[in-house]
């Protein structure tokens, strides 16, 4: 437990000391969403119709932008080798690292999203649905994305390959999340979509740590 806490605190300290880098995905997210109303016009109906999808696409792309960093520094400076040789199993360490990464990237996104929802004229019901889908869907992106990051950590300029690997995997999530927001806009229940996203999340939390740990070992090899 002490070991896992220290991984968490170390990653928090490192994120704090690289605040500028941490801001890049958030700035990207904000810029994409503020530019959309300017590009397609201020019509509330149009903005409301596409709002949920725009926020979700921006969230996926901004998360992908920051994802490359997840294991990069640890791989470069040899901390990853030391994690592998520690008495704590690697899959437990990667759970903490993925959670910390999600916390660092998603909490700011949650904090700023009410303002962005206003830009896109989302109703209160749509906003609630958006928050719930983001809450369940973004950890899924982090856990599944971390497998791709672990596989490409040893490659130089692996960012494009990472995006090509991961974006097709996130399409089902995008469909269910936007469908939930659309249902909310029509005041229809959206529990089934949330249940499917939650099931995908639980499935990924259960299995991906092993896959991430194995991928990191392959990359080290």
């Amino acid at each position, binding site marked *: 437990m002490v070991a896992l806490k220290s991984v968490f605190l*170390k990653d928090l300290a490192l994120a704090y*000391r690289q605040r500028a880098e941490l801001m890049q995905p958030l700035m990207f997210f904000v810029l994409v969403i503020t530019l959309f109303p300017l590009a397609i016009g201020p019509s509330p109906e149009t903005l409301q119709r596409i709002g949920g999808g725009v926020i979700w696409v921006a969230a996926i792309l901004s998360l992908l932008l920051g994802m490359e960093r997840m294991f990069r520094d640890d791989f470069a*400076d040899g901390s990853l080798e030391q994690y592998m040789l520690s008495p704590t199993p690697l899959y437990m360490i990667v759970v903490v690292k993925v959670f910390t990464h999600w916390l660092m990237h998603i909490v700011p996104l949650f904090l700023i999203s009410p303002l962005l929802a206003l830009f896109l004229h989302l109703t209160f019901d749509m906003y609630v649905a958006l928050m719930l889908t983001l809450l369940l869907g973004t950890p899924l992106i982090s856990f599944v994305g971390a497998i791709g990051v672990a596989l490409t950590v040893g490659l130089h300029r692996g960012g494009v390959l990472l995006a090509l690997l991961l974006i097709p995997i996130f399409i089902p999530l995008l469909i269910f999340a936007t469908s939930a927001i659309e249902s909310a806009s029509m005041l229809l229940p959206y529990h089934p979509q949330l249940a499917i996203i939650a099931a995908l999340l639980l499935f990924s939390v259960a299995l991906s740590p092993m896959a991430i740990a194995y991928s990191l070992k392959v990359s080290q090899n």
Partner: protein
Amino acid sequence: MSVLLAQQLVCEKSDRQLFSDINIELSSGQLLYVTGENGAGKTSLLRILVGLSAPATGKVHINGFDIHKDMPSASQGLLYFGHKQGISQLLSALENLQFWCQQHDVKATEEAINGVLAELGLTGLEDIAVKNLSAGQQRRVALAKLWLQQDASLWVLDEPFTALDVHLIAELEAKITLFLKSGGTVVMTSHQKLSIDYPISNLHLDYSW
């Protein structure tokens, strides 16, 4: 029981066989000095021994545990010092060592860590980000792990003398001798002549293409 037992190790990289049929058996208090020219496979051998790389064939056991199948158990008491130093550039020397101690279940207080850093000539530099230290000073921070992990049974050191001054090389050699005399086992590589007053077993790897 052997501390380190490696049987019939074969290493292949990019269709090239670096070495084959390597057998190592080391007991408590033994030093294995691996030599060979650049590219002969010294680092690859060491990485296979600690489980960071997989051999094409062969097995490695540390304290009776298969390092490639049960790494958390096998790596208890193992200290690996590789080319990458395992310290974060953005953290200070003290922070790096505190986090490392917590992750490796090493009981060391802040005073103890500061004491080791002072012993390694890093007084006054404990709270400075490692990126602002010289290459030799960064190496010293990483080497402090050898001083801190008291209960290690096996040290695997890949060119530990790189970037160190003469004074610290002598100090490190003395530390290695002390560890061996206390029953520790060491596998190491170096391009420098080893001045250790202790029996040394040598394993020479030939470069082959």
